[in-house]
């Protein structure tokens, strides 16, 4: 690894043709993965992600170059390439401050047991216990793949404004992929058990084995759901991970890259009413214990709490440095990327709807006919969004009548968030998952209290 003075020379080389800003991003990440097919453990695999990226910005133009040759000479060559590619031919060069400095912050996700220090046999035991719990959950299982993953990512961001900051992010994850059968048909499902922490999360067996049993049982129940006719009805979304609604219906459209490309219904609407007054939407990368949290973003900015919509009024966008500047805003700690092979862009972290004051029980009780969504599988966002209803129940006369299946919630984000007519008092967190977009797969959470949409078209 190069030292700070060599990094300075690399940054100076990148700025040579007159760019306004240059940044070096180093990454050294160790990951391990162990797979189990039904009860048979396949083996431990180690992954080492290692490389660096140089980001050069000037006005509305940016250059990103990256390589896994992290030698001083290799990086100098990369910086020269970046300078030539941006090709501004300015005589004046930005001066880098004499001293590099970085913020001192405490990690929102402290780690007790680093996974690399844990013997493979202990990881194997967790995997076996999880697979066993799934296999003996009850339903007939055609195929079961259980994966154990852990990640230990160390990054260093050093830039031409004199910032030098390091961060270390540790996560662990179990993934279950199961195909169940009732003898006539089969049904596939996958779910993750994610934690932004070290191996200490597996000290309590009940947590992960309960997850496995519950996941298989719910997958079997999903097979028995009844198709419902398409209709316009009230939709109640349960507290917790149903918050994916916010991620897909408006989160992506609030990212500065979407605003700059004019690919968003929120363009030019700052300060305007865009949602029901019951809606206060927040993105906060600082919350302890959540999958989307870290000390800094991937541009070295300290993470922060961003109020995006307050009582229905659009207050802010999610900004990284480059796309933020394109729309006249500063970074608010949302520049994120999967690894050094991606330039950072504006992304969500922990996106949630603030709790309201409505009675959770009344939300269902007052519905003569409608849909209750217990969990959402995932979806896509943008001006039009779609969400998979993983577990849903039909509401009849204010009560849950029968499970439904094969439903997708689709709509226009702006239309739907205007129709929120109830927001519950009890906020529940989400375990977290991955969001895939322009800068790769990044860990996020998205959660809410129980909410009701006054009317929504459903189909399946």
């Amino acid at each position, binding site marked *: 690894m190069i030292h700070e003075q060599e990094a300075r020379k690399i940054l100076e080389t990148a700025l040579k043709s007159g760019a306004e800003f240059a940044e070096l991003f180093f990454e050294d990440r160790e990951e391990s*993965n162990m*797979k189990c097919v039904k009860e048979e*453990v*396949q*083996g*431990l*695999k*180690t*992954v*080492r*992600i*290692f490389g660096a990226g140089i980001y050069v910005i000037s006005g*509305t*133009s940016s*250059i*990103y*170059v*990256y*390589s*896994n*040759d992290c030698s001083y000479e290799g990086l100098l060559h990369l910086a020269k*390439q*970046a300078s030539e*590619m941006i090709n501004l031919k300015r005589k004046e060069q930005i001066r880098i401050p004499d001293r590099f400095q970085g913020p001192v912050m405490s990690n929102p996700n402290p780690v007790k047991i680093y996974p690399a220090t844990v013997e*493979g046999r202990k990881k194997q035991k967790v995997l076996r216990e999880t697979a066993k719990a799934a296999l003996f959950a009850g339903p007939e299982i*055609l*195929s079961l793949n259980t994966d154990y993953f852990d990640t230990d990512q160390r990054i260093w961001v050093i830039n031409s404004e004199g910032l030098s900051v390091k961060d270390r992010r540790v996560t662990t994850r179990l993934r279950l*992929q199961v*195909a169940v*059968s009732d003898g006539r048909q*089969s*049904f*596939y499902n*996958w779910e993750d058990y994610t934690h932004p922490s070290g191996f200490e999360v597996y000290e309590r067996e009940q947590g992960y084995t309960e997850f496995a049993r519950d996941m298989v049982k719910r997958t079997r129940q999903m097979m028995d759901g009844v198709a419902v006719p*398409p209709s*316009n009805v009230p939709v109640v979304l349960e507290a917790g991970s149903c918050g994916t609604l916010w991620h897909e219906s408006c989160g992506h459209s609030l990212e500065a890259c979407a605003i700059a*490309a*004019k*690919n968003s*219904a929120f363009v030019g609407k700052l300060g305007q009413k865009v949602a029901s007054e019951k809606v206060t939407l927040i993105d906060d990368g600082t919350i302890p214990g959540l999958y989307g949290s870290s000390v800094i973003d991937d541009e070295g900015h300290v993470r922060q709490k961003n109020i995006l919509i307050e009582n229905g009024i659009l207050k802010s966008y999610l900004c990284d440095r480059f796309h933020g500047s394109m729309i006249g805003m500063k970074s608010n700690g949302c520049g994120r990327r*999967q*690894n050094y*092979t991606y*330039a950072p862009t504006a992304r969500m972290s922990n996106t949630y709807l603030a709790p309201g004051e409505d009675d959770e029980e009344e939300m269902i009780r007052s519905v003569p006919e409608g849909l209750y969504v217990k969990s959402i599988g*995932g*979806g*896509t966002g943008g*001006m039009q969004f*779609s*969400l*998979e209803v993983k577990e849903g129940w039909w509401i009849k006369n204010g009560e849950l009548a029968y499970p439904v299946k*094969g439903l*997708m919630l*689709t*709509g226009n984000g702006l239309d739907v968030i205007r129709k929120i007519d109830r927001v519950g008092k009890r906020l529940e967190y989400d375990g977290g998952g991955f969001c*895939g977009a322009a800068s*790769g*797969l990044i860990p996020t959470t998205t959660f809410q209290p129980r909410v009701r949409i006054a009317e929504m078209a459903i*189909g*399946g």
Partner: protein
Amino acid sequence: MRELEGYRKAMECLPSQIAEAQVQADRTEIISIAIMNGEQTGAQCSDVTELFIRVLVETEEGKKEGFYYTQNLEEEPKEVLSQAALHAYLAKDVSKERFLSFDESHMRLEGKETKDGESWDKIKKRALELERELNRENKNAQIMIRLIQTKETRGMVNSVSDVRCIESSLFRYEAEMEIAEEEFNVPYFYGCSQSAERLEDLSHEFFQKKIEKWRGMRLKQGKLEAGEYPVVLDCEVTANLFATAWQMFTGKNYLSGSTPYAGKKGKAVMSSVLCIKNMPSVPEGGYRYGVDCEGVPVRPLILSENGILKNLLHTIATADAMKEEPTGTAGRKALLSGNIHTEIIPVPANFRIEKGERSTEDLLKTMGDGIYIFESFDVFHSINIASGEFHVPCKGIIVKNGVKEAVVEGITINGTIQDLLMNVEEVGREMQVRPMDLLKSYTVCTPALRITALKVTGSQS
């Protein structure tokens, strides 16, 4: 590849516990440039080499496989091999499995070979030309063109083969276009891409046709009652469906019963007008594949012909389990493989449904009355590959007497992939080439399909 030299030497004298070893090196070099309003707005340049190390270790419990992946090229080959061997002790017995020895014939690739890539200046000039042509024809729109040159080199060295090292190097060019415009104060946004083996084969006409087709969908809003309708699926929609549904054709899912086609090899499973293949290259795009990640050459493979399921996508292990030949479709980067690509699974190269002779417009005329589905969303979450069930959110157009009448939004097409493929009456000639999102490790190439009937839920008001 210089990265493999150290491993080749290390394999001449392997540590005693290692019976066999194989190292795969994948080097990806990318140059890309984005142009908007005649100006360069962004560019990327990269050079990354990944090393995948597999070793077979003899233990008291049998032969076991160890794995290690690294991007740190400074690591000592001997240490890396030993590290992989350490992991093997926790693995299952793979005595019945094998590494494949390879020979030089694997390197004979289909398609045109490009010796060198194009220069930065030439790529930039072509991107500026494309953007200028499109701006000339679309004056009120905001257009962005991103042009990408990718060179992929795969090298492999193993300890068991007479020919210890093979190498394959392929170039491709890709242009991505994004267009934003307003009509009657309504914003519209669209993006698409084109790939080719040569830079000069990327054309603005391709994008202009796509733009005109996109604008042609702006009809008056209609309303659709739920029901079963004759349907034409646009080639973009079929590509979207098969970006997920190809998994129903893997040996892995066949063996575990996790595909509705399990046990149906040799049987009639779909309409006889369909021919589904896996190809090393396709004429419609620039994605080419030489050898898979087990050293097996990618060869043309018919998956289904005349309605009969003939072959499956295999790794060596699934081919052996079914007593069949490997198909050159062992990969690591597929759906759900996340960001750690350690497992070898069946992954297509170019998964292709052969095209027909008539245009989509002709298919609509033959359909007469029905629905033309031209846009679909999120097939990843809306197709169950074990049951084949799908519920895909879409946009469509009501067609009367072969004429497009009104757009319907918020509809969903429903059914099973098996029924859909069984009910295909005709295949169109326009093809959509869809590279897999983000990883671009395979493509799906599909035409429009005319279907006897499909369940469609009603439109949103």
